[in-house]
């Protein structure tokens, strides 16, 4: 190996990798010539563990896959289990789920914005977005009683209906947040150093991204109009009117833009779902044991396509439960984005991925 080339371990403890993982990069001078993400530091054996739990015991465990967007995992588990049991949530529960999922998406994106802010040296964006996120955490706390791991969805519906005056509170929060989102955007978009560190960095075109299995905002930033809420609608997304945010540049700045735009669209969906929710029951009773068989479900997580595949042998515990985490695949596709860029671009490229190791390692 020539003396000017070297391998550097960025992690498992490094300010830019949120969570425990390691990025090994090979440098020639300051340019990255090879990169290899290493995971497994947080592998808890989730898939083995749930084979020893009953179906209802897994609901709170599904929360723990990712503390940043626990509700979307919780919901995905319940949706897959409902398919396996052959039941369907009542209409009102579906609307409630859609509204709450979109609140969760905004919260998750704000957590990501906080992380990107610190990675790229803007501490104001961190404090501001964390403050805005608290508005939504308050809403979710009022709904479910917890700030982060909500344990809200149930197999066959949701745990409780909206509390008193909830629609009013949500609309007030959204009105306020709409104004503050403009502030957040101007803080980033008019920030010259931020633009210098993001525009044209970490480029990936749509065809490559598709082959490498990328999904979610990163894929949409590469100019692919792919969103499971449209392509394979679940719950009541078919009836919701919203745009799918795309960008054609495929660089870090495009990925940032897509997520910011998505927060606006999520607000639209929350308002619609709250206004259109019919009255009625919110939960049906699920049997204890599902019939023999298997079920698969995939939904649009804030980070991309998350999928669960469940096999039942007719007992009260799942025979096999496989989780496809969007971050797991997005991370595996990251080396081609890094090649040819400088080591100082790594926090920008990887930070914008919204890493969550809880769901990556399981």
């Amino acid at each position: 190996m020539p003396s000017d080339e070297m391998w550097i371990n960025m992690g498992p403890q490094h300010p830019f990798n949120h969570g425990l993982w390691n990025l090994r990069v090979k440098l020639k001078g300051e340019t990255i010539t090879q990169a290899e993400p290493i995971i497994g530091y947080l592998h808890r054996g989730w898939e083995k563990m749930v084979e020893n739990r009953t179906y209802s015991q897994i609901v709170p465990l599904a929360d723990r896959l990712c503390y940043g967007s626990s509700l979307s995992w919780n919901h995905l588990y319940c949706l897959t289990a409902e398919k396996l049991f052959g039941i369907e949530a009542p209409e009102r529960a579906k609307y409630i789920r859609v509204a709450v999922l979109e609140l969760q998406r905004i919260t998750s994106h704000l957590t990501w914005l906080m992380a990107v802010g610190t990675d790229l040296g803007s501490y104001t964006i961190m404090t501001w977005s964390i403050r805005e996120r608290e508005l939504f955490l308050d809403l979710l706390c009022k709904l479910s009683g917890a700030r982060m791991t909500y344990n809200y969805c149930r197999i066959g519906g949701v745990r409780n209906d909206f509390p008193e005056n909830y629609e009013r509170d949500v609309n007030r929060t959204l009105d306020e947040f709409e104004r503050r989102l403009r502030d957040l955007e101007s803080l980033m978009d008019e920030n010259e150093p931020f633009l210098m560190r993001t525009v044209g960095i970490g480029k990936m075109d749509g065809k490559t991204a598709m082959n490498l299995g990328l999904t979610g905002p990163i894929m949409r930033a590469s100019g692919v109009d792919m969103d499971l809420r449209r392509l394979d609608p679940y719950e009541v997304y078919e009836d919701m009117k919203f745009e799918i945010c795309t960008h054609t540049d495929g660089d870090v700045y495009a990925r940032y833009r897509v997520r910011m735009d998505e927060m606006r669209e999520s607000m639209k969906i929350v308002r619609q779902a709250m206004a259109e929710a019919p009255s009625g029951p919110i939960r049906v009773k699920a049997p204890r044991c599902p019939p023999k068989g298997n079920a698969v479900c995939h939904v649009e997580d804030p980070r991309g396509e998350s999928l669960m595949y469940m096999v039942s042998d007719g007992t009260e515990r799942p025979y096999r439960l496989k989780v496809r985490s969007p971050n797991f695949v997005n991370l595996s596709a990251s080396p081609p984005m890094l090649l040819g860029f400088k080591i100082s671009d790594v926090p920008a490229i990887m930070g914008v991925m919204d890493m969550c190791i809880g769901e990556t390692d399981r």
Partner: protein
Amino acid sequence: MSQVIVYDSPDRSVEDVTNDIRSKFPSVEVLKVAPRRMHLRAPREVFLDLCKFMKDDLSFEHNSCVTPVDYMDHFTVVYHISSWTNHIMAEVQVDLPRDDPTVDSITPLWGGANWHEREAYDLMGVVFKGHPDLRRIMLPEEFRFHPLRKDFTVGRRV
């Protein structure tokens, strides 16, 4: 500035796509066809050819997941492959004998399968022929077991 690739309405129906597979691969069993879903079972000898056909001619662009399941007497590897163009998610099951869990790797076709296959090898011990870099991913290299197999017990509730 390039164009956005849009998938607004499906190009072909799921029945149409299934009939193509039926006529090209008579040994592939069609388990179930539902709206936007297609369930197949393929023998492992034709599996790679089936995947090539699905990718090149039926525009299945995306590999979602690779799931090995241990049924004690055999392994089943379940592939979820999506076509955004036709709005279909296909589920392809491949049965493998327990004493020789070997199947062709689809990583050369869909790069997204890379880490899924590594994980399947790591935790379940399924070997993927033709994978560019089949190493353990979650567990350390020197680990001697495949812990997601049903005969791996730690002696207590985990």
